[in-house]
């Protein structure tokens, strides 16, 4: 059972502002979806082979060929909702 407290908790974990109607609707919907996906708990079986065994490998690279400092700054900063010079402006954190 999904309680209203569970919904509050999930919304807060997801950083989501939800209206009362949204919370009620999500409660019913998530309940029904969980009812469906819970079927997997009745399936017997443990992982036998690692998924895509041939494909799994570490992908690493040297940290070289870095871009020249600042070449993307303008483009990226132009997308910021609020800025001051070359800084993104945010609310006070501490």
């Amino acid at each position, binding site marked *: 059972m999904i309680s209203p407290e*569970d*919904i509050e908790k*999930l*919304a807060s*974990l*997801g*950083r*989501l*502002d*939800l209206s009362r109607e*949204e919370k009620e*609707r*999500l409660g019913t*919907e*998530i309940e*029904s*979806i*969980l009812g*469906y*996906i*819970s*079927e*997997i*708990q009745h*399936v017997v*079986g*443990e*992982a*036998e*082979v*690692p*998924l*895509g065994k041939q*494909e799994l490998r570490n*992908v690493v*690279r040297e940290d070289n060929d870095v871009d020249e400092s600042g070449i*993307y700054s303008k*483009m*990226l900063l*132009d*997308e*910021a*909702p*609020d800025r001051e010079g070359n800084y*993104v402006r*945010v*609310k*006070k*954190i501490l």
Partner: protein
Amino acid sequence: MTIDLAQLSIRKAHDHLSKKDFSARELAQAYLRSIEKKDADVHAYIEIYDDVLLQADKADERIALGEADMLTGIPIAIKDNILIAGKKVSAASKILENYHATYDAHVIELLKKAGAVFLGRTNMDEFAMGGSTEHSAYGITHNPHDFSRVPGGSSGGSAAAVAMDGALAALGSDTGGSVRQPASFCGVVGLKPTYGNFSRSGLIAMGSSLDQIGPITKTVADAEILFRQLRVHDPKDSTSLAAYEEKKSTEKLTIGIPYDFLEKGVDPAVRKNFDESVKKLESAGYAFVSVSLPHVEHSLAIYYILMPAEASTNLARFDGVRYGLRADAPTLLAQYVKTRGRGFGAEVKRRIMLGNYVLSSGYYDAYYNKANALRSLVAKDFDTVFNGNGVRVHAIMTPTAPTPAFPIGARMADPLQMYLADIFTVPANIVGIPALAVPSGTMVESGKNIPLGIQFMGPHRREDILFRIGKSFLGES
């Protein structure tokens, strides 16, 4: 010459362009006119780019120099979650309403190099979450074959654009069927490549272990052309496959059908069409056997655990700080919460909540870990029928979707009903294998021809087998 869009394929258009029967500009104009005429009813596009003719002129210069590639001057539609530097890209969400891409996706880089012409960005379910293109912040898309029905989703705009002759080809993205299911609903061809064949760099992420960009085209040969051009290793995507030589099959092919899996929830018209399609392939010389995939029936449940888990994680980056929408509030935390509350639509919120649920301590083992374990068992089922010691097949065939395109609004009230449309398409994403959806005829309802489709799945990196069967099924040379 007059351009007959209905008759064009990429190869035909390329031949005409090379022979100067028409220019890339004239071809682009023909598509723009077609969009002008039809898109008011269909709404396949969120935006038509203002530099289409400029792009076409560049292609014409290249053609004049005799340096044309197969895709030079070919008008293509791009799903609104694939980045083109400097152009708006929103994933059909309010949270990215005025966002401009700051770089090119790898597939876009390749298409630009080839000289393709981008017509515009197509409508989709917000963040690719949905199977009907009704979950867009910018209006719904209608099925070009029957405006009262959905085009499928989430790449519904891309499929509708190709089906209405509003683009010669399109790119979509497929996390659980989002290329193949709309292709099927709109009567066109859709390919989900082997995971890692197309780079995900520049694709707005949903479920990173499942996402794959794929082409939507009118013919299998066109899908093959785009596949060959875009299957390029990309160091920016750590899951991108290393370059490899494609295999070729010449032997007689055997196709497996998981009959047990087709028993529940399949519309009788879809089943009848499927059985007829099997007969058609049998008479073309293909052998059929019944195969068993014991865990495949759990694919949808596995998918609706792993995908929300990955999506809720990927979507954490939309916080109103560095880009996109920012809703004002007194504190930073309040700003996050308000921005996301306003910026995300209902389906996105639902999946974030669900993702947080299956990842919470206390439920993590029961859902997320269990789903991962079962994922490997589904993968093993497929591996056994493709490579095992018993009955072996070259490909597996199912309907693409259990029903034809459904009426607009019919499933919006019941998310679970909506999810069931993915039942046959999610296994390929879970296993990472390639799958090709091809149109298989129509059913007539209320005097309208509603498309139906079938799907072929093959072993990893064996798209060649799917193309061979698909072309033979559609009678392409």
